């Protein structure tokens, strides 16, 4: 079986050595490691639409959900690095490997970060059971009454963001895991859990409807799309310098020229009017990074989350 797989890979690799000039030579698959319908899926479908127009080749979205995005990522890691198989993921790309220690691939060597498509800070929203409207009030309330932080699942970025805030803010709180951001938001609305931290795409629809309230931004500064919401640093909580993102990832060992080519094409595609409209609807900004900038960010985050996982003892047994 292994020999067969190796041969197949070798053949694929040989036929797949495509130079940056003649990419794409056939249809491109964009893997979304989540179920259809989520915010990443919708962003990915819009991106596929733009790239298809740009490349003149079909760009097909394939949902491969499971294991906090790692099933789709494992599939990507085994694909030929010819640019015809790509993946769109959130910061779960760097948080999940910190919890899942037995992944069948090396999260750094077997994957190539290509570009950041969108970014937003982590927004902290509070549910019906929380009285505070502002970050400062929240801190006082959370110290008085140990709160429940809802997450979108073990090892998700919302889980790590919650753990990071609890650590840096020295808050006596418990995390309670839900199956996805939708359930976490419901738990907040019903007052069953108190706080959920995630990217704007996951929380803003509910904030706008008045179902949950935005009480804080994680990071040094306020977010210009939510100017009235206080940041964590404003309230004396240091050491949180992470933003949420959605980025394009390729298999490991891609030709740097090809990476640069895809990077340039995607950065151009995300400036289009229709894509900007989707970004705006999600309260996120276009990423627009060089491959190096994005790679450096991913490497830095992976180290940060691994360390946090150890310190907070959140590694799966």
């Amino acid at each position, binding site marked *: 079986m292994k020999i067969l797989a190796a041969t197949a890979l070798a053949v694929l690799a040989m036929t797949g050595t495509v130079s940056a000039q003649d990419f794409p030579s056939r249809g491109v698959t964009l893997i979304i490691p989540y*179920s*259809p*319908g*989520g915010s990443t*899926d*919708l962003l990915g*479908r*819009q991106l596929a*639409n733009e790239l298809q127009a740009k490349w003149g080749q079909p760009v097909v979205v*394939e*949902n*491969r*959900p*499971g*294991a*906090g995005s*790692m*099933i789709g990522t*494992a599939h990507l890691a085994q694909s030929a690095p010819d640019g015809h198989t790509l993946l769109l993921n959130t910061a779960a790309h760097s948080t999940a490997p910190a*919890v*899942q220690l*037995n*992944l*069948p691939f090396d999260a750094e060597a077997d994957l190539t970060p290509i570009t950041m498509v969108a970014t937003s800070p982590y927004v902290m929203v509070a549910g019906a059971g929380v009285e505070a409207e502002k970050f400062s009030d929240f801190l006082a309330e959370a110290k008085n009454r140990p709160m*429940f932080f809802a997450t979108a*699942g*073990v*090892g998700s970025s919302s889980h790590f963001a919650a753990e990071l805030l609890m650590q840096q803010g020295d808050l006596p709180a*418990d995390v*309670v*895991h*839900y*199956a996805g951001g*939708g*359930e976490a*938001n*419901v*738990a907040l*609305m*019903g007052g*069953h*859990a108190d706080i959920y931290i995630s990217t704007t795409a996951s929380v803003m*629809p*509910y904030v*706008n*409807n*008045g*179902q949950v309230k935005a009480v804080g931004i994680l990071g040094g500064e306020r977010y210009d799309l939510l100017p009235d919401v206080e940041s964590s640093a404003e309230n004396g909580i240091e050491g949180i310098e992470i933003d949420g993102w959605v980025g394009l990832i390729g298999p490991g060992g891609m030709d740097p020229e090809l990476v640069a080519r895809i990077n340039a094409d995607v950065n151009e595609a995300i400036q289009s009017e229709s894509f900007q*409209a*989707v970004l705006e*609807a999600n309260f996120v900004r276009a990423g627009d990074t060089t491959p190096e900038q994005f790679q450096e960010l991913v490497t830095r985050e992976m180290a940060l989350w691994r360390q946090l996982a150890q310190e907070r003892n*959140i*590694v*799966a*047994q």
Partner: protein
Amino acid sequence: MDMFANLALGLETALSPTNLLYCFVGVTLGTIIGVIPGIGTLAAISMLFPITFHLDPIAAIIMLAGIWYGTTYGGSTAAILLNIPGAPANAVTALDGYPMARQGRGGLALLMTTVASFIGGSFGIIILTLFSPVIAGYALQVSSAEYFALMLLGLVAASTISDSSALKGLAMVVLGLLLSTVGMDAQSGAARFTFGNLALLDGLSIVALAMGIFGVAEIIASVRKINVGDIDRKTISWSAMLPSRDDVRRSWMPLVRGSSVGSFFGALPGTGPSVAAFMAYALEKRSAKEPERFGNGAIEGIMAPESANNAADQTAFIPTLSLGIPGSATMALMLGALMIHGINPGPNLIIEQPALFWGLIMSFWIGNVLLVIMNLPLIGLWVRLLTVPYHLMYPSILMFICIGAYSVRYNAFDVFVVLGFGLLGYLMRVFALPAAPLLLGFVLGPLLEQHFRRAMVLARGDFTAMLERPVTATVLSLTGLLLVWSVWSGWRKYRARVRAQQAIEA
């Protein structure tokens, strides 16, 4: 008066030629997808999703919704005729539907499930029209503790869902519960029973399990006894399809109970048509005067689940539309179709987009009527399916099942899971182990476990805190009473048998 104005607006929207066309396209596709075992709603909707970029949002969601509830209409067809559920929500319909078909009452079963689907669907739509905002508010109050209590009640009520020995039924429930624990534990992140296999980290797929245990097992079992000719042509005629007065009398209450149970579980985010169908079947059997008729072609056994899953299909739109919370991946995809067009579902949707909200609801009515009109003439055609030679029929069904299992998450591993469960299902048949309790344990198991553990975290480990919640306490006491009553009535029956035996011997 407001309501009439709203309904008129909705009707006007839904009856526009474009929307009517997309409604028709949706329900037709839904019926076809439902009839073909394996191919599920999620796969179909995600394949059609790119079209919605170019459609008017109302037309798009009317079509996608049509696929969603149309599938449940069609899904009972293969369940009844072939013992192969078109979708997991129809699995329980096979329990009595298939025996009915074996008795030559297949046409009747199909007709009656169409009626049940229509009544269940209509009931759901009425609830959706009148009480959406109220129910959505209450649904939010349901916490993990209540979910746990409800699931436990369902599990206890249904643990004797099958006819064979209670011990075998219980063993299968436990096996189902065990199988449902495979995968990453949602509270600790620990991998359970995955043997280092990444594909197992997300658990076994319900579609693969249902298709394997029911579908593949049925095929393996039937291959040895070819009996194509035994379908009596007479059963296809109209007169044979019409229900007798007795059938109608028996169907009445199951319809009412099934629709209510279905509407309830559909409206809860987190449960759906499958859970609703199982719960309705369990309730029906529990409240029946002659529970031994179930599993042998009792008409109540198809009316209750089919009205329940269709009612649930409709009320599933309550949390989706009025809270913006999708209860399932399919619902999320429908929300996505709206969000692509800049429409944010939520409490303000009814106010901001009245044409869309009421138009969609009115399209449900139209869609349901279309489904009935479409399904009635088709019954004769479906029944004729049974006369297709098995060497053509079974390979194609197997192929569809494999495609269906694969298409859920593009994972070849799921195809092997189907085959594995097919073998298990066959062995279970050989040893007369019932399949339904296994599926039930598998469906309810994860809900039971996750909600219990979440409730315990939220109560900071204090079990008595759960009992302080009035609804939880009530449901848990009911469960306890039911358990005691079951044991007692079982003991009484056993005593009666022993006494009868002694009387004979004496």
